[in-house]
């Protein structure tokens, strides 16, 4: 049904038995697309910043000999290789992580040039991109959260109801079968995913703030919250990874559960649902 319900007149039953409803408020739509822009730039500038020390540590200070994760390059008799180390595991990631091609030559870099801004190694400029979009993201997120709490969007649309939670098993089965209901409300897995990513993003921002020596002096509890600046940096990275995973799953779900309907609902607000489901709502 994805390709056929692109331009339905609102409110009228369609031959497929669908009606258009207003699904996303203007505020949700605007903050969503600002988020897309901000998170994209935060990610690619964040990878640039990570590349300045392509390793993660736990604790108050960096125990250089014991990173929990690192991306390194080393020479071997058969040429240079890129190594990704996570805990006690080592993977050969030549070409992608640790060692990648840049301008036709092998370069020892954590993440490759095509994934960073600027594409060449430049921490100072990466930081400028990062802070610019960090503020856009923070202000946008604050507007969303305040409006969502005050206006009820978070409680009404995102917090699962008891019956949602009881039906979680059925919802998982439906998702696994790639069978998607088109109704006004989010299903329980959507609610949990959206609430979850909001939580992850809040932790991510706090962990980012904890990396600041200035903010740590102003708000000493930040360091205690994360158990050290280096742990905070690791958590910042893990949260960013979770956000990337969320985005991948989110985009796949948008594509396979009716791409035009989903895109239209996040642009114009209008979403085609089964007329039957709306009859129940009324």
């Amino acid at each position, binding site marked *: 049904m994805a390709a056929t319900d692109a331009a339905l007149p609102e409110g009228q039953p369609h031959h497929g038995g669908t009606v258009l409803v207003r699904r996303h408020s203007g505020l949700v739509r605007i903050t969503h697309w600002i988020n897309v822009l901000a998170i994209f730039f935060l990610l690619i500038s964040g990878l640039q910043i990570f590349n300045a020390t392509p390793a993660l540590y736990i604790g*108050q200070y960096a125990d250089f*000999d014991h990173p929990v994760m690192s991306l390194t390059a080393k020479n071997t008799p058969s040429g240079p290789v890129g190594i990704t180390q996570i805990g006690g595991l080592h993977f050969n990631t030549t070409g992608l992580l640790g060692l990648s091609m840049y301008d036709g030559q092998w370069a020892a870099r954590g993440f490759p040039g095509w994934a960073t801004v600027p594409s*060449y190694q430049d*921490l100072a400029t990466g*930081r400028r991109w990062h802070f610019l979009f960090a503020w856009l993201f923070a202000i946008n997120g604050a507007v969303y959260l305040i409006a969502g709490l005050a206006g009820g969007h978070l409680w009404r649309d995102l917090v699962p109801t008891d019956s949602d939670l009881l039906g979680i098993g059925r919802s998982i089965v439906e998702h696994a079968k790639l069978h998607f209901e088109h109704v006004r409300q989010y299903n329980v897995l959507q609610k949990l995913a959206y609430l979850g990513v909001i939580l992850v993003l809040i932790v991510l921002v706090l962990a980012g703030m904890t990396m600041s020596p*200035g903010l740590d*002096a102003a708000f000493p509890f930040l360091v205690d919250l994360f158990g050290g*600046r280096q742990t905070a940096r690791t958590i910042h990275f893990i949260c960013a990874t979770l956000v990337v995973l969320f985005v991948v799953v989110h985009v796949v779900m948008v594509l396979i559960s009716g791409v035009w309907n989903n895109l239209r609902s996040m642009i114009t607000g209008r979403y085609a649902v089964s007329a039957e489901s709306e009859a129940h709502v009324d």
Partner: protein
Amino acid sequence: MLTRRLPSRRNFLRGLAVSASAAVLAGCDRLDALSQSDWFRKNVLHVGEDINTAVQRFFLKPTSLAREFSEADISKKFKANGSTNPDDPAYRALAANNFADYRLKVGGLVENPMEFSLADLRAMPARTQITRHDCVEGWSCIGKWTGVQLALVLDKVKLKPEARFILFTCFDTLEQTLDDTGRYYETHALEDAFHPQTILAYGMNDNVLDIPHGAPLRLRTERTLGYKMAKYIRSIDAIDDYSKISRGNGGFWEDRGYDWYAGI
């Protein structure tokens, strides 16, 4: 009004993949060009760091202290970064004699310029603090620093009312240039210069400060990133403006694109 000619899902996805890779390639070049544009750097990219500075200035009281740790928290290995063994002749000469001839010159916009030997500085009240050193590169080390509060030194020379910044000129040349703009220097606001944890350190981890970490004298400003904490200090001057010094941005790394405030 009705657009019925929609691409099939397969074609749509294929188109998406092709345009995405083209966009990535074109986007990389475009973003690199923006990253190098002076106008864009100054007027757009810098906005985030300007807000950082304003917000941190708002929340950081003069009395807000950086955390001080215990002996048990000290890093086993404290990384030395930037210059680690300056080869500038004036520095080598002093190092050869174990800095016995070292004199810290303090001048500029002050009532009575003075010179301090290391013995003079050690004779002043000392402050010892175990603090976390945060490098802009992302790593941290914890060390124990002993020195004299910069405020005590500045009180002795008495700043003139027009003084707004404190300039630290260093012995080390971190980048070879023809016009001496590769020499390390830093500037600080008076608020940070007079902060109780801002010290001129001559000792580290209960030893005399060693050459890799900035002997004979280095700055500690514990609420900033590491590059603000000049090593190998040659002289200190009170100034009213740093735009005429070196490349005009108030520090060696600031001249190379890093933020002056450096609180995050």
